[in-house]
């Protein structure tokens, strides 16, 4: 299958500028970057995509074993980079995508030249001294929250979303559709995300890295941001004046400024 179609790849901005890849996390899709794209598109070529199983990706390409590890999602990133023949691109990953970016950068070092980790967490579940913020039971509870909400969504949303892959603008009219996808696939992504432990991968990062955190974020508390900075050699940590797990939506100006400042240092 065509990768650009499979991952619903969209390319915008300055075709001659340096390339920035924006990767959404668990929950919604590339629409999450709607307030980020305008700030980057002036001087950069901006690549957006949806992971298989999210947004308007080709759901038929979903393969449970592949997407049951972050490695499988990293392969999506590699596939997109290969399809566009990217070199030295800056990979901006939100939440779990920050760690997916770490894995992808190790697979194709020539394609990914820098990382921006937006509210990353290498491990969500507490483990001894390490405080990820959640217990395994909490994660089970999230899975059941997903289940109870998809009861209504799956029937009402699935036909609308799956039937109109060529009409992305139609999605804008569908309430809640950005975060709606096949419940079975969302469940796999949720489980893979929140039960992952990528702490050991942080030390392998060899590219310039910017870490963004919120002042208050239940999913990625500041303790975790400090942990990531301590384990990624030469990384920069910026604490945004924002609350919640989506600073690119709740504090777009501060987020955009931090990213563009970082991009300027790469020139």
């Amino acid at each position: 299958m065509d990768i650009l179609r499979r991952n619903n790849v969209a390319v915008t901005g300055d075709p001659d500028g340096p390339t920035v890849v924006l990767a959404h996390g668990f929950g919604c899709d590339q629409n999450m970057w709607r307030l980020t794209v305008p700030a980057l598109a002036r001087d950069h070529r901006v690549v957006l995509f949806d992971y298989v199983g999210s947004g308007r990706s080709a759901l038929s390409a979903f393969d449970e074993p592949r997407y049951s590890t972050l490695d499988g999602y990293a392969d999506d990133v590699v596939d997109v980079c290969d399809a566009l023949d990217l070199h030295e691109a800056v990979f901006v990953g939100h939440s779990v995508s920050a760690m997916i970016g770490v894995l992808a950068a190790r697979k194709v070092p020539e394609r990914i030249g820098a990382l921006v980790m937006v509210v990353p967490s290498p491990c969500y579940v507490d483990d001894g001294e390490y405080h990820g913020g959640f217990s395994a039971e909490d994660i089970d509870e999230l899975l059941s929250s997903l289940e109870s909400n998809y009861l209504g969504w799956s029937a009402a949303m699935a036909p609308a979303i799956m039937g109109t892959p060529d009409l992305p603008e139609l999605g804008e009219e569908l309430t809640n559709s950005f975060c709606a996808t096949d419940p079975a696939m969302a469940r796999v992504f949720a489980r893979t995300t929140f039960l992952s432990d990528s702490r050991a991968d942080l030390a392998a990062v060899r590219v310039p890295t910017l870490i963004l955190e919120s002042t208050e974020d239940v999913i990625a508390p500041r303790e975790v941001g400090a942990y990531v900075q301590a384990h990624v050699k030469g990384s920069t940590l910026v604490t945004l004046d924002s609350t919640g797990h989506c600073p690119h939506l709740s504090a777009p100006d501060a987020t955009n400024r931090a990213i563009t400042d970082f991009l300027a240092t790469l020139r």
Partner: protein
Amino acid sequence: MTAGIEDTAEDAYETAPCGHLSTSMDGTIIKVNRTLLDWLGLTRDAVVGRLRFTDLLTVGGKLYHETHFAPLLRMQGEVGGIALELTRDGGARMPILVSSVVRYDDAGEPLLVRTTIFDAHIRRAYEEELLRERQAADLARQQAETDRARLQDALAVLQQSLLPATIPDVPGVTTAAYYHTASPDELGGDFYDIFAIDGDRWAFFLGDVCGKGPDAAAVTSVARYTLRAAAMHNPAAALGTLNAVLHERYASGDLRYCTAVFGTLRSDLDTGRVAVRFASGGHPPPLLIRANGSSDFLLSEDGTLIGILPSSQFPQTDVVLDPGDMLLLYTDGLTEARVNRARDFYGPEALQTLASRHAGTSPTALVEALSDVLAGFGPRLADDTALLVLGAPARPHNGL
């Protein structure tokens, strides 16, 4: 009666049959109604300015809020009908349905979020019941699929037991056979066999029992063993025996009959010729395909269906296969297959055309060509089909 009764916006807000709260954009609760405070078991002072909306939720709910609810609210300005759970003072949980809307200032900047919360415990109990029913239905479906697979396996084994495991090598004769199963869920009633009678005589038969399923398979089994036992006689007598057996067994109740061709083979290794003598009981005529490309259906003075009448006659036909000639036996699954939506049959003419094109090849090549045709029908092929081809091997020209 209603004169004099007034309601106030203030009281309608405070004692509404649903919870109301307002938060600043960072989630801090700035206003809450009495209904919600009662549900939470908290005082206004403990909530306003002190807690965020997410503090009222379970941990799973917080995660869901951060990954779905909050981004949707930011992108759409409103979110409706999300199922979450409140944690009440004392640890009890209360299923709720939540809708939120962002209030913007005159400049279009988000100012605050208004949230309405409905008690959803009855609805949630109903949904959980539905969920349980769905899980039970999924389990039942899996069980049914397992049972079906097991039944199909059993049917396949039974079907195989009604056919020869392998076709024996008949000296001086080339052979090929094929059985096409239309449905793995049903036993077909077609059968064939080829076997030695004595030193240089061989017998073959191919037939079709009316109907499908276990009853048809039982008749197939009877037909097969009866014909094998009666093979010592000439073909007409063998079919006569089968007729008598079926008639006696089934005439009193459930009428069961079949059509069949039964024949004997004698090959002459010196000339390469094969002498065939066969009789037919109501069966589609065998197709003789000469090496030179001519072909004919061997319309005999046809006997009646086997098992219908107490005594029936089954006239015999003799034919000699010269080197390169073939004789094709088939069941009507082939000639009565629907070739298109207009429900036209594949028919004898199409069969004859295809067979002539393979004249002078081999029984194996002809069976392969026909099985491709059968596969091409796909689900339109409603009936099982048996094919049996007998040939006199072509001889090298320099041998003449």
